[in-house]
């Protein structure tokens, strides 16, 4: 077997020749995640610049519930563990384990999004609307975009569970689970940054 073929096999191309010798899907996912860094970089920069701009309405220190957000952050962090266990199960061709861990990951993600909805509602009731101040606008935009990403991740996870149960994934299931796992971990690492810069470091 040629070196190229071995290289392809090692990286999940499964016989399809690519110019890099790597899975095109995986390269595309990493490029997408690189571009997502730019999206969140812009949003986080905007928030950091505007978080002190409060002419009316509550200031960050008045509306943040750190103990509650800490629990949410912990839940999202643990969902990364269940996701990586799902990837590991998929690589061992354990469909039952894969669907179990994917479902747990989706459940933890849904808990996080539920917490975010609760947090937004509480903040709105305390007088922080989307257009109340630059702080409010940049905060809701940043955390809202992140929440949408988590929601999209949950939809992908649940879709994947359904697809695995029907055994309709063509080719390697493990790679599909791994790709969605990469997206999920990315959402987690972005929250690691947001939690520190937005919530823990005071304006």
């Amino acid at each position: 077997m040629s070196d190229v073929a071995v290289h392809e096999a090692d990286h999940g191309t499964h016989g399809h020749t690519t110019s890099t010798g790597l899975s095109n899907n995986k390269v595309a996912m990493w490029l997408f995640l690189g571009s997502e860094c730019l999206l969140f970089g812009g949003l986080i920069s905007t928030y950091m610049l505007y978080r002190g701009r409060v002419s009316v309405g509550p200031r960050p220190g008045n509306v943040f519930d750190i103990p509650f957000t800490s629990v949410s952050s912990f839940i999202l962090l643990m969902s990364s563990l269940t996701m990586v266990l799902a990837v590991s199960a998929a690589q061992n061709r354990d469909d039952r384990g894969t669907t179990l861990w994917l479902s747990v990951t989706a459940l933890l993600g849904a808990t996080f999004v539920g917490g975010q909805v609760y947090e937004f509602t509480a903040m709105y009731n305390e007088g922080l609307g989307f257009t109340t101040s630059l702080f409010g606008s940049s905060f809701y935009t940043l955390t809202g975009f992140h929440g949408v990403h988590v929601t999209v991740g949950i939809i992908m996870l649940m879709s994947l569970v359904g697809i695995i149960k029907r055994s309709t994934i063509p080719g390697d299931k493990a790679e599909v689970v791994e790709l969605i796992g990469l997206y999920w971990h990315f959402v987690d690492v972005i929250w690691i940054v947001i939690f520190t810069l937005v919530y823990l470091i005071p304006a």
Partner: protein
Amino acid sequence: MTAATETHTELNHSHDDHAQHGMSNAGYIRIAIILAAMTGLEVSTYYVDFGSLFLPVLLILMVVKFFVVVSYFMHLKFDNKLFSFCFYAGLFLAVMVYVIALATFKFFAA
């Protein structure tokens, strides 16, 4: 052994390699415990006065947690360097956007 059989065997072998790719489940659990402990330390800065160490501790913990998840859970440490390049190029540009935006507002703000 025919070429086709050889290819099939090697593909199966690579599947097994792929299953061992990265770490064991116990290793992932150990990493998660370390991440949870770091999160606990981060949250403790809200309750305990760290003085002048407050900001450095938080930023260091944030960066370490970021790279631990990216390296181990996302397998970037064990994967092809091209993937690292794709991701870190985007991350580098994002940090540059942040630095330039902050610098612009600092120097040109009224």
